[in-house]
């Protein structure tokens, strides 16, 4: 199969374009997504190509953006709505949590809610506590919703296309720090199923679960560790709902050790649920307690220097692994 090298953000744009092309019920709206093409350029050129009826700006009204997305979905459309920053999920939390996710269940399955919420996440460039968060952990307990966090251009494209085609609401969280990352994408209608983990690297000594920007740090950590003869298996769950526990647990049964690394804070972050479930189901196989790598329990400081200090780094993962492998005294 032939493939092309594409940048992460362009992969997202290609996914949007292909789905807008493919299905006339797909449309996209959000603040500045029209002529400007979105503040992160995810929809650049799409209004020009598909017209103002398909790709258009909204007022600064996040409850309207998500809520009207739900309404349009109920009325037969397949909306993609953009929140300028993933942090703004808190502005539209009621619409995501209680409208999008629960509508189908509460109304006896009479409707589907084929809504995609696109919201870039991550601490990049010193934009402060309200424009830098990775909020996926808030949605672990949100039945009815899918939550997706692509780490590569191929996944960004394939997962977004799956999200748009899904009949259930999907919170799609690309990482701002990956926007110019290049990667191979198979040509043609590239789809990646939602909820299927990706074993990105094989290894026998321990398992690292990491997604989004963190996956790349995990892979780098794995390379460093490999120089010392430590072989890490690196798994990208590609999101947290649904979560491919089976794949992770299979790996942990083999390696006996697990590190979960994410950009959000450790305390109350998305890793807790993974640790709890994996420990429950693979307890007898664990040679050491699961370690978590993540930010400290503070808001993201705006100073770019301080921000860099709280965002977990390759060395943090390496250090966690080394601690874990130390003989117990």
């Amino acid at each position, binding site marked *: 199969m032939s493939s092309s090298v594409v940048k992460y953000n362009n992969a997202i744009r290609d996914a949007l374009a292909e789905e807008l092309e493919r299905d006339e019920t797909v*449309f996209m709206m959000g603040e500045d997504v029209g002529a400007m093409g979105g503040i992160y350029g995810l929809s650049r050129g799409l209004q020009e190509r598909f017209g103002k*009826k398909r790709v258009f700006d*909204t*007022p600064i*009204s*996040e*409850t*309207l953006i*998500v*809520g*009207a*997305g*739900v*309404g*349009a*979905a*109920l*009325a*037969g*459309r397949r*909306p993609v709505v953009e929140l300028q920053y993933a942090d703004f999920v808190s502005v539209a939390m*009621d*619409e995501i949590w*209680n*409208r999008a996710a629960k*509508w*189908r*269940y*509460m*109304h*006896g*399955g*009479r*409707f*589907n809610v084929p809504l995609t919420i696109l919201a870039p996440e991550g601490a990049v460039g010193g934009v402060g506590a309200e424009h830098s968060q990775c909020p996926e952990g808030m949605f672990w307990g949100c*039945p*009815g919703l899918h939550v997706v966090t692509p780490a590569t251009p191929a996944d960004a494209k394939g997962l977004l296309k799956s999200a748009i085609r*899904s*009949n*259930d609401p999907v919170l799609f969280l690309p990482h701002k720090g990956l926007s110019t990352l290049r990667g191979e994408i198979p040509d043609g209608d590239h789809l990646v199923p939602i*909820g299927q983990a990706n074993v990105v690297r094989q290894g026998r000594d321990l398992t690292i679960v990491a997604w989004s920007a963190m996956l790349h740090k995990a892979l780098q950590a794995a390379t460093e560790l490999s120089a010392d003869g430590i072989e890490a298996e690196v798994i990208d769950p590609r999101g947290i*709902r*649904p*979560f491919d*526990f089976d794949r992770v647990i299979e790996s942990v049964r083999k390696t006996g050790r697990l590190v979960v690394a994410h950009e959000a804070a450790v305390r109350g972050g998305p890793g807790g649920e993974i640790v709890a479930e994996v420990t429950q189901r693979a307890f007898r196989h664990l040679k050491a307690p699961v370690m978590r790598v993540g930010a400290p329990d503070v808001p993201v400081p705006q100073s770019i220097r301080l921000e860099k200090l709280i965002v977990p780094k390759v060395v943090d993962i390496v250090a966690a692994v080394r601690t874990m492998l130390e003989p117990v005294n």
Partner: protein
Amino acid sequence: MRQNIREEHVGTASNDRRLEFYEMMVRCMLWEQRLLRMIEEGQIAGYYHPGRGQEGVQVGAIAALGPKDYLLYGHRGCGYQIARGLPMDQMYADFLCHLEGPTRGLGAGTIHMASPELGLLGQAGGVGGTFALAAGAALAAQQRGSDQVALCMFGDGTSNRGTFHEAANAAGVWKLPVVWLCENNGWAVSCSYAETTAPERIADRAIGYNMPGVVVDGQDPVAVYDAVSTAVARARAGEGPTLIEAITHRLRGHYEGDPQRYRTKETIEALRREQDPITLMEQRLLADAAADAELFSDIRKRLAAEVDTAADKALAGTPAPPERIFQYVYSEEQGQ
């Protein structure tokens, strides 16, 4: 006179139409009466927000919709769904948590009766949660180039939610085919209109969204029908949204069982005497010699029987089995 606000006065309609409205209001009233008995008898749990007194708004407004239009209804009783044609037995079934109800046994209280066929899009438990949904449904209609309209009904208290502002503004900008219909009964639970809502009239908010504001007598379904019909016609013609404020009265508590300490017995009794839309319609029909007491009594008897049949059918239905808990979370029942 506030600019941009039009006052609709008592509408005119044929006798047949008025009798239709009368009959539908009585149906809603009797349906609720039977439901209250079920509540009293302990067959139904949760809160119910009785609609008694607001049948005029609900019946008049919904009669102005076409078969393909969308309705986002309010939480004040069940007149909306009845007027829209949802079978009454299915509605009881929902309250009884029987599988025959629209929620397939999940239950009512907070009402979540949806029907794609009837354009009933359902309800949010958080009041004001449907404003944006109505805008979205109207947007879908506009995109399709259909002439469908979305009618969104809500209480005066609910109009203070920020979600109203966001949805109304978008509707104004995009000229969405949506009708915002506020049932202003002067109360939000125990809080009076004046204590919680700043403008003299809810319709005063229309100009802030560049749409017409209309005030109408909610106790007269004909007046409401006229106002909503005008708004629906505007919407269908691509002229955008309208904000209608129907002045109405809630004749019972906020929820069934509410001791209503926030208003006097005398007030309530006066309202029941003077503001019952069913009595008012009877008086008008009598005054015009369009009906007599016997006709009213015949209609009531016939509808009471209809309602009883519906209740009996529902009561004989199937309680939702435990599996229902896990159904309909996702379209493809993907577990985790």
